[in-house]
């Protein structure tokens, strides 16, 4: 599987993503600078976490309009899987590849900690190595992670089964107490209609190696390799 990681000025999880991808695929991904207009042939495109363009105007707003994103949007619409992590999720919503917005955390605080997530479905390229209803531990590190969409959009997402992950307690109960940032319906990640684009605030790449004190995130990358390598 050939993966590309898009690097924006201010990205800071691009190398973590590259390490996790290399561990899963056996080869380093292409690192593509935001100003490039050409994107190598890719089976997977990753938009990493960080603070692209210093979060100016709105998180992800500038990056969504950077030159390479025109090509990313074109590929995404043609079916190439795209994974947006944290700031990458914000970029995907600003680029309108995913609906809704990531707003300031309800607590107004930057939150950096491990959280429990419930896996909502396992029939996608991203979640093939998980079991439905599994509780997994990923790390969050964000200030603008409160997922907002209007009632109509939210009903559509729920109706179409497009919620990928929800914040939950260790037993898998989705509750207000387990919601770290005020996201509507405890949403931590969502898919596009075709389930080929996934945006999520938690970082699978940060718990993808035993040395990082957790490996739940690694299954996302190994699962991607299994479903896309063919």
């Amino acid at each position, binding site marked *: 599987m050939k993966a590309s990681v898009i690097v924006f000025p201010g990205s800071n999880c691009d190398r973590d993503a590259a390490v996790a991808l290399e561990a899963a695929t056996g080869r380093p991904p292409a690192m593509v600078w935001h100003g490039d207009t050409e994107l190598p042939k890719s089976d997977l495109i990753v938009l990493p976490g960080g603070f692209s363009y210093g979060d100016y105007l709105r998180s992800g707003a500038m990056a969504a*309009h950077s030159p390479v994103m025109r090509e990313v949007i074109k590929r995404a619409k043609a079916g190439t899987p795209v994974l947006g992590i944290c700031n990458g999720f914000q970029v995907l919503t*600003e680029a309108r590849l995913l*609906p809704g917005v990531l707003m*300031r955390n*309800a*607590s*107004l605080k930057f939150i950096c900690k491990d959280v429990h997530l419930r896996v909502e479905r396992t029939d996608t390229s991203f979640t093939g190595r998980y079991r439905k209803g599994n509780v997994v531990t990923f790390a969050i590190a964000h200030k603008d992670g409160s997922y907002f969409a209007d009632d109509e959009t939210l009903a559509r997402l729920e109706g179409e089964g497009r919620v990928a992950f929800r914040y939950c307690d260790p037993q898998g109960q989705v509750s207000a107490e387990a919601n770290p940032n005020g996201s509507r319906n405890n949403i931590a990640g969502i898919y596009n209609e075709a389930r080929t684009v996934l945006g999520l605030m938690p970082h699978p790449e940060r718990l993808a190696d035993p040395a990082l004190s957790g490996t739940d995130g690694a299954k996302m990358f190994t699962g991607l390799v299994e479903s896309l390598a063919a």
Partner: protein
Amino acid sequence: MKARITITLKPGVLDPQGKAIEGALHALGFGSAGNVRQGKYIEVEVAEKDPARARAEVDRMCKELLANTIIENYAYELEAA
């Protein structure tokens, strides 16, 4: 022409920053303060003399970048630069 653009959160969209500001105003004794909402103000000089064309240009700027119309409304005034 010069555009003075105001971007505000749509009614009903949660604004925790506005709430925090409101709390601080109350703490300062401004009991009269209520329903505080925080927005953005942006000035842009548009190299366009015709007001109708300038308006069309500013509208596109707002829709494509300056405001996220999922959660924000925008309004602006134009004046000769």
